[in-house]
């Protein structure tokens, strides 16, 4: 079996297939497995977000009587630490690969037909590999903004993570999760951050009650958040950039920035792979069309991860990788999740899984909602972060949990309980009857469930 792309989907597929006894070749351009997630995505950004959280936490500590003073930031050391984290994790994956005797080839792969691939190595060496089955795990890349020229002042998520310097004025184009996470990093490191977003709210598609809590905090720290606004022109101007912004009312403003980060989405890597030499078909959006086993329309080629469709999330890719590998080894696997969790690692974090309120309305699903405010949580009070709430989206008749949405400090670690509940077909009463440890934020899930079934302990809801 051949796996093209060694991101979290590709390496999970390769490892699983090797463990199940297949002879596996893994092709990737990087020296080790890891993909965008480890080299240029999740992992380095979370390392930097951890640093930025230390800065904000220590600043806010002054309010409870501990003043650390203004932090001194050694950008070079921070960069090195982040790179070290990446290096350590990817080297570990390289070892896991070797121990499974997976044949790892560094280079760019291109399908010659449904049974062979040409790999061009970094030094120009070419080799041809034949296979019985291939899994395409080629991932995705950032969408570029047509009006922004190729300037070193225009960053994408990859170059922003390189942390070359801290610009005085940074414009973030795109109020999605990448823009807001990187905006948070640069903001805490000292940049004045402005965000423009075309949609009328941040994190388009996310339930607005969740984003409202984040928006309220970001509005205090960012220089400006401009919604329903688009960038129509970007010009170089005296050691910086001049961006022309157009608001909803058509009003045009020109503003100066030192740098600009374009984070307006990602597009699947389905071009330049020689897929036209196979029978694998693409959707109009450029994703490979796949079935529940992740087989493409070419019976010998499977596809997983970002290139196989939304949502473009590492954990979804990993799960798909295992499904594809098990299926190709003769097992009966299918990709059929009830709840794919999403976490935005801003401050506060936003996390959800299952059906969102927005989606329930759109699909005309019947639901009820219960919300437990973190203001009523003892734990939230002790960490001095009462800005947040825990929301359950329930079936109105059975109380079955359809979705969970949380906003609040560190809530990314809480969402998995929601995933388990949804996948197990649990009801609010199941969560209510499980004892949750006190004092923790996880109690907010139990208390939210209590509200669904009648009476909460720490939140009084008059009975109608």
């Amino acid at each position: 079996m051949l796996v093209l792309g060694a991101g979290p989907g590709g390496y999970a597929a390769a490892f699983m297939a090797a463990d199940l006894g297949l002879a596996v070749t893994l092709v990737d351009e990087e020296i080790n497995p890891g993909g965008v997630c480890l080299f240029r995505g999740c992992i380095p950004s979370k390392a930097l977000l951890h640093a930025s959280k230390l800065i904000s936490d220590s600043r806010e500590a002054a309010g409870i009587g501990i003043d650390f003073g203004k932090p001194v930031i050694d950008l070079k050391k921070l960069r090195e630490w982040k790179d070290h984290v990446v290096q350590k994790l990817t080297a570990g994956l390289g070892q896991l690969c070797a121990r499974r005797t997976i044949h790892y080839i560094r280079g760019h792969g291109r399908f010659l037909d449904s049974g062979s691939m040409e790999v061009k190595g970094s030094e120009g060496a070419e080799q041809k590999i034949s296979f019985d089955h291939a899994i395409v795990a080629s991932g995705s890349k950032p969408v570029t903004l047509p009006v922004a020229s190729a300037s070193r002042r225009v960053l994408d998520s990859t170059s922003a993570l390189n942390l070359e310097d801290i610009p005085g004025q940074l414009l973030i184009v795109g109020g999605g999760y990448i823009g807001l996470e990187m905006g948070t990093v640069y903001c805490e490191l000292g940049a004045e951050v402005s965000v423009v977003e075309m949609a009328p709210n941040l994190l388009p598609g996310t339930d607005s009650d969740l984003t409202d809590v984040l928006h309220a905090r970001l509005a205090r720290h960012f220089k400006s958040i401009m919604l329903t606004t688009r960038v129509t022109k970007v010009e170089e101007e005296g050691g910086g950039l001049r961006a022309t912004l157009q608001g909803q009312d058509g009003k045009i403003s020109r503003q100066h920035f030192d740098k600009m980060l374009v984070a307006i989405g990602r597009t699947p890597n389905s071009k330049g792979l020689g897929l036209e030499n196979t029978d694998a078909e693409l959707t109009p959006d450029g994703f490979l069309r796949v079935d529940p086993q992740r087989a493409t329309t070419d019976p010998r080629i499977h596809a997983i991860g970002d290139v196989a469709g939304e949502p473009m999330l590492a954990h979804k890719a990993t799960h798909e990788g295992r499904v594809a590998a098990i299926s190709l080894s003769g097992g009966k696997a299918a990709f059929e999740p009830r709840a794919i969790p999403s976490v935005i690692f801003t401050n506060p974090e936003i996390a959800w899984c299952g059906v969102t309120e927005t989606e329930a309305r759109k699909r005309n699903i019947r639901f009820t909602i219960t919300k437990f405010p973190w203001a009523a949580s003892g734990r939230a009070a002790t960490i001095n972060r009462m800005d947040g709430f825990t929301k359950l989206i329930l079936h109105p008749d059975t109380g079955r949990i359809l979705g969970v949405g949380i906003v609040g400090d560190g809530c990314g670690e809480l969402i998995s309980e929601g995933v388990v509940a949804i996948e197990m077909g649990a009801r609010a009463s199941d969560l209510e009857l499980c004892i949750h440890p006190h004092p923790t934020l996880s109690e907010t899930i139990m208390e939210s469930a209590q509200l669904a079934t009648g009476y909460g302990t720490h939140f009084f809801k008059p009975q109608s």
Partner: protein
Amino acid sequence: MITEFKLPELGENILSGTVVKIPVKTGDSVKKEDTVLEIEASKATIEVPSPVDGIIREIAVQEGQEIKVGQLIMKIQTEGAKGAPEGKTEAKAPPPAQHAPIREEKAAAPPPETAEEVAAAPSVRRLARERAVDISKVKGSGPAGRILEEDVIAYARGIKKEQPAPEIQQELLPDFTQWGEIECVPMGATRLHIARHLSAAWHVIPHVTHFDKADITELEITLKKYSTRERALTITPFLIKIAASALKLFPHFNASVDMRKREIAYKKYFNIGVAVDTEKGLVVPVIRDVDKKNIFAIADELKEVSKRARANKLTIAEMQGGCFTITNLGGIGCTSFAPIIHWPEAAILGVPRSRWEPVYIDKQFVPRKVLTLSLSFDHRIIDGAEAARFLRWICQTAEQPLLLEMEG
């Protein structure tokens, strides 16, 4: 591109069938909807159409083979494919032998759309996939209908029970050649199905048969009077109509018993099956919603469906959904007989040949046309007295058809 054509769903509860004919061969070009396979399943011959236009590249089944839904039948290359000229195909590494089983197993997985709504843990959903159970059809016994592991196992067992009925243990046949020449012939799919079905019905249902006589002298005159060249009225359509009315009056006869669930399902529809003798064996097409049809319409439908039954053109759906069956051997003979119930129905009416009998009326014997009807019934849900009343009502209605309007 190459389309892997797998055996599609053939009908409710039909998971497999026997290939009786493959009217195409490798290299043939076919059009979408062209028949590429004939399959016999549950006594019906089903023509399986091609899903696409294209050229048949490989046929993965043989005549006489028993195949399952989802199993690879053939590979069809569709037109306009980027598919390779001859030379290039050779250059490709031949797919290893493991391909076929992989495909086959994948096909057993139910589509995720159906799985989306049911409440079942991921491990239970996987178990269902492994057992080729469509989890959306499983009834959950957990809170709010949550499907548990044991529900899937019970369902998988249930399917197997309904599928090939339990084989009854049988002593080995003696060696007949010691007494003379014999010829052993394999059982056809239809015969095998009949054998299994009837063994199971006989095994499961405690049968009791009642007999009663109907004087049909007047009825025969009426039938003859209303017969035309186009529509010869026999007693069967008339009895079909009477049976539907009888089911309305005696709901226990329009029921099926489920010992596993300890439930009796009462049907609110009136579909009557009619046993038809064909070259391949007995088949039972079903006439639907008899209560809403008049006797002429029933006669026409019966004629049409019998014709198609003899031509082996019935679909499986046409042989399902019956409430009660009538088997008429009058055309051949018999004074009376005890038929086996067509499970999962509750009773069956046997119709022999009518005959002239001396009947004692007004202190003298007069010749009357008499029909000795028989009724086999499921004694688990129908008591003897009720069965006697049911059969009496049928006989009386045959004698005084006005009862159809008064009580039916």
